[in-house]
């Protein structure tokens, strides 16, 4: 058993972090939040780093790595608040040509939701429509959709779908593959949330070390220190859960399919919690400035609120976990190797 990052993973992580620090500086995020939506040029630069083809075999131009490697990279994308349909595009890689090099951008429409909203339809070339009976792929312009005038997260533009999703397009996955799509998607989505939580925490810590009140930096007050320590605890617990979920999903030796489902559900619950509570604390630590458009704290919280609605809410995952809780079955299954 080894849950530390390998040298290769660390190199990938640092490489991506460096590029993102350059590509997604605070000014760029602010411009994007002011309405200058990020374009396909930014998308290509991210795709060049290989993030969409991490788990695709090398023979198909991917990296041939595991879901845990992808999770490590998606945490970085989350921490940098990179906008776009990152998770659906990564899930579609290997099924939809052009996703790995960035020429195809895939967003997702979950037809099981009572309200049909799709993200980033302007950026996307394709939409994967998810229904109980399978996955279908359609061109982005095949959807009858109208833009939502004011999206919650300025970096996550939305379209309201009035029709076209249900019967159009080419079938690319069976009902069984829907479960796999949702499971792997929940892992990557949770990895983004861990990144969002970490990014919000880093921003708040920096501010707490600069902002002076009562002749001291506010980071010296225990009330502030403890708020931030709580965020750190949630980030670390969620990150460990996400990595274990990714490894469990990839492990062919996991005897019970439900073991992977439980690991993923726990990861989503913990990652959503880390991002939403951490985003809120991050905003709180910024005081009045935290409530302004200019300070980025609100963008972390809003992204957390977007991501918590994707790939199953924490409540849905918790309800599933509850069905598996019983003293009768509690003897094995604590560790994947048990």
């Amino acid at each position, binding site marked *: 058993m080894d849950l530390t990052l390998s040298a290769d993973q660390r190199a990938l992580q640092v490489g991506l972090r460096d590029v993102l620090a350059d590509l997604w500086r605070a000014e760029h995020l602010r411009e994007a939040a002011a309405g200058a939506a990020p374009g396909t040029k930014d998308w290509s630069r991210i795709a060049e780093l290989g993030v969409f083809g991490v788990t695709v075999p090398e023979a198909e131009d991917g990296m041939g790595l595991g879901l845990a490697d992808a999770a490590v990279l998606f945490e970085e994308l989350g921490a940098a608040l990179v906008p776009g349909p990152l998770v659906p595009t990564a899930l579609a890689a290997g099924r939809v040509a052009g996703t790995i090099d960035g020429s195809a951008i895939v967003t997702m429409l979950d037809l099981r939701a009572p309200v049909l909203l799709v993200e980033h339809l302007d950026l996307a070339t394709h939409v994967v429509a998810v229904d109980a009976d399978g996955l279908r792929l359609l061109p982005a312009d095949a959807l009858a959709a109208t833009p939502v005038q004011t999206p919650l997260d300025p970096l996550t533009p939305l379209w309201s779908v009035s029709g076209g999703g249900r019967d159009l397009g080419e079938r690319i996955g069976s009902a069984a593959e829907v479960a796999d799509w949702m499971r792997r998607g929940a892992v990557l989505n949770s990895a983004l949330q861990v990144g969002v939580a970490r990014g919000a925490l880093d921003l708040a810590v920096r501010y707490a070390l600069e902002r002076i009140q009562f002749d001291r930096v506010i980071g010296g007050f225990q009330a502030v220190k403890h708020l931030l320590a709580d965020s750190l605890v949630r980030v670390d617990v969620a990150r460990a859960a996400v990595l*274990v979920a990714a490894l469990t999903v990839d492990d062919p030796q996991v005897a019970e399919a439900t073991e992977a489902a439980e690991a993923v559900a726990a990861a989503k619950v913990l990652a959503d919690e880390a991002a939403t509570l951490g985003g809120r604390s991050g905003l709180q630590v910024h005081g009045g400035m935290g409530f302004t458009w200019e300070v980025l704290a609100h963008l972390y919280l809003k992204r957390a609120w977007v991501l918590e609605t994707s790939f199953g809410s924490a409540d849905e995952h918790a309800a599933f976990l509850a069905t*598996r809780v019983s003293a009768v079955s509690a003897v094995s299954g604590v560790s994947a190797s048990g």
Partner: protein
Amino acid sequence: MDLRLRPAEQEFRNRLRGWLAETVPGLPPRPPGDDWSARRRYDTGWQRTLHDAGYAGVDWPSEHGGLGATPTEQLIYLEESAAARAPYIGANFVGLLHAGPTLIVEGTDAQRTQHLPRILRGDEVWCQGFSEPDAGSDLASLRTAAVRDGDHYVVNGRKVWTSMAQIADYCELLVRTDPDAPKHRGISWLILPMDTPGVQVRPLLTAAGSSEFSELILDDVRVPVANLVGAENDGWRVAMVTFSFERGTAFIGDVIESRNILGEIADIARSTPAPGGGTLWDDAALRRDVGRLAADVRGLWALIGKNVSEASAGLVPVQGASVFKLRFTESRQKIGDLAAHVLGRAALAVSDVPGVVGGRNGHLVEDRITTLAWTIAAGTSQIQKNILAERSLGLPKEPRWTSR
């Protein structure tokens, strides 16, 4: 990154699981909580059984009689022991997890020869004399004085929260040997034989109604200078060595117990009638709470895996230990509250009462009370948060309010 065990680790697990399955069912019943001499016999008897089977001192290096197990094997040991509901480390806790490992690192050859084999065999029980009535979180302000008199120290003072004091043979004792030095630099770590004249043990009743803890009154107690561990006035550093053992793996079995308790709560809810018909389990809010706590348990187990992996790589998971303790203790207290919710008025009885599904309310209620101590002992949650904020996040240290 890999979740799988190595073949040798899997073999270790299989052998241990087989031995526990043979051994645990034949054990005598556990003695009642406050029969301390019976508890000593039971706990040290189990230690002797472990010793004779070659499982004593799993985490101790083999050159000192331990098993020299890898961190992953230690995890397996604790996991399998909890799953088999083997006896808890109990009275052997301080000897095996604090004093022994401290002597291994800091003790003289004579100290090691005298104590280590006896701790491993269950012949020697230790207690801890660190905290004082006026030195809790601010441990370094301790005042129990040790004054040199020839080849002895004469010790006077009071210690508190000393578990198992009434049945211990030795106490790891922190004393002040230089009252004029800055507070961290005048402390020494002594081995106190509990039968020394002047040692008085005064049991304290806990909120759980147990006399687990005692107060130690030390009145002109003469301790040989040969019992000094580490250098005189270097005891704070030695104590930090002791704490580094405390924060590692002590809670692993308790996470498994969290999961077991949560399972019991769910089972009780599934068969307890709800006032308006159906069962308590029909309440979606209750199921959501259970599911969220189940996620906690899984997250904590993942975190243990990460901490153990860091230890295997030769790192000390300092941040991981504080993160784990904070989340685990908070989560277990929530589980206790949920148990009380499901038990309803049966949560008012620490002993079993008729009418509860499965008839086992008592241990759930007792656990709810006992675990109140967990956010306080071994570094309160507030101290842990200071540690994380300062060491991991780089926020300013707490101001030093005391002059020393």
